[in-house]
Each structure stands twice: as structure tokens, then as C-alpha cells.
């Protein structure tokens, strides 16, 4: 049963990550390749707070979200000045810089060895969570809150303006919307949610290293979003379900690990090609990325 609970916890983390990517990519049409960097910033900063301070989880989560969100301004600054492909390349650059720092700043990040013995989350600064079952409950609650937040944001006037930016940024400007500010907010919230997923992951796994937050991970999150569908809440949830469940199903086929890993990549790649060809908005998506 612990195995199933572990899968559900990872699924919850990926639902948060894919939803966070949907805010910028699916709603504001800003194709970012650095979601894993924000996930990593959340994980490392969260580890710092969990290790150094005896704070309740709500406070740590808030601090991690604000700090990770603040890092997003580096990317949103680029989004105002760079368009389309140039912006995508700039976000990729941010992702690579972040990974290089994690990998080489050994005194702080532990370098390629990462950080061991990340403390568990203390709910009220006292009771430390341990065990899969407790993390299952916590991750379910946090994911439910994130899904609720995303759904409400998407159906609010704020979400409508992001959709307008996606549809026609010039028109949105001509209607008096400060599109640069709205994009910055989208990035901030997106990074904050990814950061939250990061701190949950770090404390649950009790070990983090740079390899969990590299460009491949950003592409993985993006793939989940494109397969599940962009622009609404259902699509990212389905996308997360797809990318988390597929490798687990392959375990039961009885293939050797080396073959299963390659087969997983082929399944993701093929799914992406098929979805892009037959349903470019994703299986449950609402809008098409321009």
C-alpha cells in the first residue's frame, strides 16, 4: 500500500508543477522552459528553512513561495523585451544557469551530491511529519488548495486578461491592460506554485540533488502539459496522471529496467507527436498554443 501512496504523492507534486506551467504557457501564451528551475529553487530554499529554523510549515511555504516568485522577475523581465522563440531560448538559458549554479556551488547546494537528510515538514513548528501516509494527506490537501486556486484564478477577470494576452496582446494593450504587469503576475504565481511543489518534494524525499531540476525535468513538465491539455484545470491533471502512471505501469510488464526507461521515453515522445498532430490543444485542453 505504501507504494500506491508514494505514487499518489508524486502525482500530487506533478499536478502542482503542471498546473503552475499552465498559468504561463496555457493562459498567457508564454512558452517557458525553466519550470524545473523554480521547482528546484523551492526545494533548495525550503530545505534551508527546514534545516535552519523551527518554523510552522505554513510560514515556510509562504516564504518559499514569495522568494521563488521573486526569482521569476528575472524571467518576466525578459518576457517584456523578448518575443516568441527568443523568449523561449532566454528561459532555457535561465534553466541552464540555475543548474550550473546548483552543480558547482558545492558549499551551499552540495554540488552533484545534493543535500542529504532534509528534515520533515513540521506542521505547527512542533509535530514533524514522517511516513508516507502523513505526506499523502498533506500533499492531497495542498494539491486540492492549488487546484482550487488555479480554477478560481482561471475563471476570474484576472484569468480573462491572461487569455486576452494569449489571444492578441496588442488588442489587450489597446483595451488598457498593462500586459507586462499581467505577465509578471502570471510568472510570479507560476513560480510560487512550482516552489511550493519543490519544498514538499524535498521534505518528502529527504534528499535533493541538481539532477531532479535540470532542463529534462522542465521538458518533462511541458510534455505533461501538452499531452493533458492547456488552458484549463482538467488538462494538466490528466497530463500529470499520464506521466506519473505510465512508468509505474511499465514496471508490471516485467521489462528490464534499462528497456523500460527507454520505452518510457518513446511512449512520451510518441504521445506528444500524436497529440500535437490530432489534438494540438491536448487531450482535455481548451486552447492552442500560438
Amino acid at each position, binding site marked *: 500500500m505504501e507504494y500506491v501512496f508514494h505514487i499518489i504523492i508524486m502525482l500530487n507534486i506533478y499536478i502542482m508543477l503542471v498546473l503552475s506551467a499552465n498559468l504561463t504557457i496555457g493562459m498567457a501564451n508564454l512558452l517557458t522552459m525553466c519550470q524545473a528551475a523554480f521547482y528546484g529553487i523551492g526545494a533548495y530554499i525550503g530545505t534551508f528553512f527546514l534545516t535552519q529554523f523551527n518554523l510552522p510549515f505554513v510560514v515556510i511555504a509562504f516564504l518559499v513561495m514569495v522568494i521563488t516568485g521573486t526569482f521569476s522577475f528575472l524571467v518576466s523581465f525578459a518576457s517584456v523585451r523578448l518575443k516568441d522563440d527568443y523568449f523561449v531560448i532566454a528561459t532555457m538559458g535561465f534553466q541552464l544557469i540555475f543548474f550550473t549554479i546548483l552543480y558547482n556551488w558545492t558549499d551551499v547546494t552540495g554540488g552533484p551530491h545534493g543535500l542529504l537528510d532534509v528534515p520533515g515538514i513540521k506542521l505547527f513548528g512542533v509535530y514533524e511529519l514522517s511516513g508516507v501516509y502523513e505526506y499523502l494527506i498533506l500533499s492531497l490537501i495542498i494539491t486540492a488548495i492549488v487546484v482550487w*486556486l488555479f480554477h478560481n484564478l482561471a475563471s476570474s*477577470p484576472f484569468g*480573462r486578461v491572461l487569455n486576452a494576452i494569449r489571444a492578441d496582446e496588442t488588442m489587450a494593450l489597446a*483595451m488598457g491592460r498593462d500586459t507586462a504587469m499581467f505577465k509578471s503576475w502570471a510568472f510570479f504565481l507560476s513560480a510560487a506554485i512550482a516552489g511550493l511543489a519543490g519544498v514538499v518534494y524535498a521534505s518528502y524525499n529527504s534528499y535533493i540533488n541538481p539532477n531532479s531540476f535540470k532542463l529534462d525535468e522542465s521538458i518533462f513538465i511541458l510534455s505533461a502539459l501538452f499531452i493533458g491539455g492547456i488552458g484549463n484545470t482538467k488538462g494538466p491533471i490528466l497530463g500529470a496522471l499520464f506521466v506519473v502512471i505510465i512508468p509505474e505501469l511499465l514496471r508490471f510488464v516485467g521489462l528490464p529496467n534499462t528497456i523500460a526507461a527507454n520505452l518510457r521515453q518513446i511512449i512520451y515522445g510518441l504521445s506528444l507527436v500524436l497529440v500535437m498532430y490530432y489534438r494540438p490543444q491536448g487531450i482535455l485542453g481548451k486552447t492552442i498554443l500560438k
Partner: protein
Amino acid sequence: MILRLKDIHISFTNAQNETFELLRGVNLDVETGKITALVGGNGTGKTTLFNIISGFEKNYTGIMLFEGKDICNASAHRISLMGIGRLFQNGQLMGGLTLMENMKLASNDSTGEKPFSSLIFPRKWKQSEAQKESQTRKILNRFFGKDNKYLDMLDEDAATFSYGEQRILSLCCLLMGGNRLLLLDEPTSGVNPLFIETTEQIIREMKEKEGLTVLLIEHNMHFVRKVADVCAYLDEGVIAKVGPTDEVLDDKNVRNSYLGL
């Protein structure tokens, strides 16, 4: 005088590094509460002038005053918030958004558009949304009659409407509030004769019932004669003639150089 343009110059450099001065000192006073038509041949800089007024083109020199305030350094969204609305040349409704969403976006009421207030004070923005919905229905009733088909299509994706319908509905969007000067770039282009009549009615009501000032670019001279109080003729980078519409359009030089008569 709602808008004053003084000595507006703009130049462009082509791929061969040759500089071409498109506007060579445009001077134009747009009178409050009137419909002014800006006419001139293709490529004379009419749309560029609209881009300058609405803040989308910044590489120009000259002075631009809106209601006496200098708007030269204002960004496009600020200019819109000041009360200058725009219908783009090929501008249509935003596809992927419903007709109702397009109408709501056109309103200057931005309640609930801040991410945290949209989550914390849903009651406040839901009230404002209800007002916008009621205003949308009133506008559609006014121009398309009671129980018109658009009332049943408010939740349809705007991309499903025909080009002509989108043009005319885009005009309706401009009546959602906050505007005092409207820049309409070829409102009748691609619109069928029946819709041209509705376009005429909407533009007249913009002036007569809403008290708005309209500056429009138009190539349909018959339409210009019917709706415009004042006409400005742009030729060779300057306003070559301005005055009552019939007087300008009947001017020998204008007929000769623009209309080819």
C-alpha cells in the same frame, strides 16, 4: 478641442538603409463631439498616425495633446485608460474568448483583475461582472433589436462569428465605457451593405447619444459624406486640407490627387 497634433514627423529606414519620411509635419485639431474623417491614399500614413496617437508607435517627433494633456510619453495601455479607444484596421474580436468576454474586456472597469483581489474578494468582482453583462445586453438590444441572435451567442467563441459581424461587434465593444475619443480604422472594410448601415447607426449614436468624439479612417467616400462632420485630407505627409466634409471632398485638388476625378 479633444486632440491636438502639432508638427508630427516620422521616418522609416528600409533594408537598403534609405530613410523615408512618411509624416512631414502633421498638424490636426480634432474637435470635441464631432466625427472627423481622415482620408488619403494608401500608404500615406493614416494608420501610422493612429498608431502614434494610441501609443503603439514611439519613434516620432512632435507634440500630442489629449484634452490639454501631453500624451507623447504615455504607453499604449495608459493612453487607452485616459479615454482613447481604438478599432484596428483588421481588428476583430479576440478568438478563443467568448463574445461576452470580449465585451467585458472592453470595459474600463478592471475590478477583480488583480490576482489576489480576484481570489479574496470574489463578491466584489462578481457584482461588477453582473453590471458588465447587463450593459452588454443593453448595447446589443439597442443596435440589433430585442431578442437578437447575439444575445443567445454571448458564450460562443468570438472566432465563430463572420468577419463582418466581428467588425460590427468590435464597434459595440467600444461602447462599454471609459472612452471619450474613438479611433476607427476603416470601420466599413469587409462589411456587407446591411452591416454598413448598422455601422453608420452605431457611429452616429456614438456621437449623438454617447457624446463621444470620433476620428475615423475610411476609403468609402459615400460613407464619409454621410457620417463625418469634418474631413482631413492627408497627402504627402501633411494634412493638405481640412474642413467641412463636403467642402474637402469637393475640393478640386483633393478630387484630382486622391479620387482621381
